[in-house]
């Protein structure tokens, strides 16, 4: 495979420089081993697994409504995406049609969340670049989105907007709130325009990010890159175009061509106006009516799955319902495959750029460190297996962390070691198998 060849092409590895798990440039704990020659990264290995909290295990057997609320704790940045998708799973299984107005409020919340996530990305990216002024500016712009989310949900994080059948009554949008959102969109659009203008016209910044951490379209697909990081390589793939929730809205799928840090940053910057466009359509056309349908009935259902497009890519939730309680929850965040791919993005770049190459995919390590699949790659039927023999979901096992390296067939390590796209593909296949 290309990426394997890329790793083996290394001539000399002078030394290994390990960073983390405690490191100021990494906002979340993870380990990266950089194999360098003359400060140029020849190979890299990212190791995650120190944040495992076992949320799926805690969710097991909880009433569905309670378990849904718990999914917000998966991520502090895209908490709404998790509860929304988790609620969508239940609504799909229980065949609940939510009121149109509730869907609009959910979309507004999700797009606001996308705004604050993308601004956070721009801020953190600037910080890793060493450009603290741009970082501060991006944080100021983010404040508008955060305050709007607080207005809707009552919190700056974990707003608890979605519930089965619609949205919480406290999240109703009255005229004053709609007006505030409209004003916020003006502020964000104006601020972003100035920010982006200064950012792209700064030759020092452009010199630092152009051609750094490049991933080709072909490799991005093979490495299962998802979301804006995939679109930054030129693949026009956005799940929102196929989601029925987004049918009433008109927006463009933004793509870039180079797959480097510059493309990734521009992707997020250009996606912000699209989110603003969606929010404006939503507040303009929001239908009248109830915001929650409480007439649904609980019944047992098999494993149901749901995919949605969140700020970092495709988010997967699935579970079954038995006696009103949740069974066999699986959550797969987009960072899972993105992080694995980014260790290849580091190759060929300067050590100082390594963190930049990793954060270009907007990784969320704590979200990712929940469910680790152990895949026995030595098994002859590993690619065709169903959901039984070769998969261990450590959320349900006594082992907290495990090695999922393709060459390994056990859990000797205490740490999940993401090595190679084949594992990510296998994880994808197996998740699909479980779900089917």
């Amino acid at each position, binding site marked *: 495979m290309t990426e394997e060849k890329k790793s083996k092409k290394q001539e000399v590895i002078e030394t290994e420089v390990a960073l983390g798990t405690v490191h100021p440039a990494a906002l979340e704990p993870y380990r990266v081993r950089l194999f360098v020659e003359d400060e140029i990264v020849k190979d890299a290995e990212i190791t995650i697994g120190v944040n495992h909290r076992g949320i799926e295990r805690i969710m097991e057997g909880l009433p569905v409504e309670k378990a849904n609320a718990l999914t917000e704790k998966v991520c502090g940045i895209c908490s709404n995406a998790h509860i929304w998708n988790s609620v969508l799973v239940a609504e799909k299984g229980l065949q609940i049609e939510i009121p149109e107005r509730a869907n609009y409020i959910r979309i507004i919340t999700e797009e606001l969340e996308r705004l604050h996530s993308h601004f956070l990305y721009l801020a953190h990216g600037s910080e890793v670049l060493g450009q603290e002024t741009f970082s501060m500016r991006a944080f100021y712009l983010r404040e508008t989105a955060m305050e709007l989310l607080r207005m809707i949900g009552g919190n700056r994080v974990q707003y608890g907007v979605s519930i089965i059948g619609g949205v919480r009554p406290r999240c109703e949008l009255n005229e004053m709130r709609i007006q505030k959102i409209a004003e916020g969109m003006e502020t964000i659009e104006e601020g972003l325009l100035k920010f982006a203008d200064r950012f792209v016209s700064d030759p020092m910044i452009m010199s630092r990010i152009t051609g750094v951490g490049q991933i080709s379209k072909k490799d991005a697909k093979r490495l299962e890159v998802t979301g804006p990081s995939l679109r930054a390589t030129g693949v026009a793939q956005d799940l929102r175009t196929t989601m029925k929730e987004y049918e009433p809205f008109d927006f463009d799928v933004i793509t870039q061509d180079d797959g480097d840090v510059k493309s990734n940053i521009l992707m997020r910057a250009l996606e912000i106006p699209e989110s603003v466009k969606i929010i404006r359509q939503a507040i303009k056309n929001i239908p009248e009516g109830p915001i929650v349908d409480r007439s649904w009935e609980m019944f047992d259902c098999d494993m149901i799955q749901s995919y949605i497009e969140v700020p970092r890519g495709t988010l997967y939730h699935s579970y079954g319902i038995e006696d009103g309680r949740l069974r066999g929850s699986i959550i797969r965040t987009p960072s899972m495959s993105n992080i694995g791919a980014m260790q290849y993005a580091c190759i060929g770049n300067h050590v100082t750029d390594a963190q930049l190459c990793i954060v270009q995919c907007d990784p969320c390590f704590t979200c990712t460190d929940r469910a680790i699949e152990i895949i026995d790659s030595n098994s002859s039927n590993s690619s065709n297996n169903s959901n039984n023999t070769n998969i261990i979901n450590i959320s349900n096992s006594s082992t907290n962390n495990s090695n999922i390296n393709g060459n390994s067939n056990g859990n000797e390590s*205490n740490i999940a070691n993401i090595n190679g796209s084949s594992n990510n593909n296998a994880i994808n296949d197996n998740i699909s198998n479980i779900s089917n």
Partner: protein
Amino acid sequence: MSYITILYSVLAVIATLILAIVIGMLLPGIERKYVQARIQQRIGPPVTSPGIMAPIKFFFKENVMPNSPVPGLYKSLPIICFIVVILILLALMPQIYSFGAFTSIIAIIGFLKVEEVAYVLMGALSKSVMSLGLPFPDIVKGATHPNVERSYIEDLSSNRAFRLIAFGSFPLYLALFIPVAITGSVFLGDIVAFQQANGPFILTLGGAIGTIVFFIGYMILLNEYPFAILKTKADVIEGPYMEYASKYRSFVYLTRGFLMFTLGALFSVLFIGIPPNIFSWGILVNIAVAIIFPVLMGIMSAFSPVFTYKQFYPVVVSTSLLGVLAIVIGLLI
């Protein structure tokens, strides 16, 4: 020389040193609070915090033994750096000009080299918890390249400090030789006397170019953004200083502020012709330069990302060429 003159000179030297330390302690705060924080529209730290309160606080903290193969040498390096900066400032004072070679450009360059070599040693002797110091089981079954030699991140900064000796200090040293080229003497006394007779070099073409070159060299020596590859947060974090705690960290902070003032005074001597002397109004010029340089540095660093070698080399090469041009102009005119 009468006893009164000697006493007067000793008093002048001591008072100038004390003033330099006080001003130097304020400079990091001015840079961070009134420049960087204002640009970034935030409140910033109290002006006394980075240069005065932090060293005092650290001085009285309990020391944590640094993780270093030679802790004694490692701990002594900030003190050596501090003494070296004092020696540089002493060499700049007019009362010392009779000490011959000690007050020459060659001596100044030698002292600055000690400072640079200290960074190499600090990096090589520091083994922090941010990398291999952390007990982390990453050499496990399936791990990539399990048998490769492993380095601490401070080893990276040590290598970088070594590279900076090789190429990073070119602009500053070339700038130091511009007055030498104009006056034809390496002695500071001659350079000051020449400027007092013929006007400051900063007003000449060679001197004006030299000012730009000196400023870039000043930023590189102080490891300030964008030239902070020695201690960039993206990989080596604090770099050579990582393991310093308590009074040793206090010396690191003091030395930085003091070096800022001293380099400002060096510029005053070489390009304006006014040496630091507390019993002369010229000291105000020294103080002004010492403040203007950090302010300009703060503005530049607030708007710059950190440079990797890809950006660093062209900047150093072009600045060095400017320095050579200024020397040629100085020789010709």
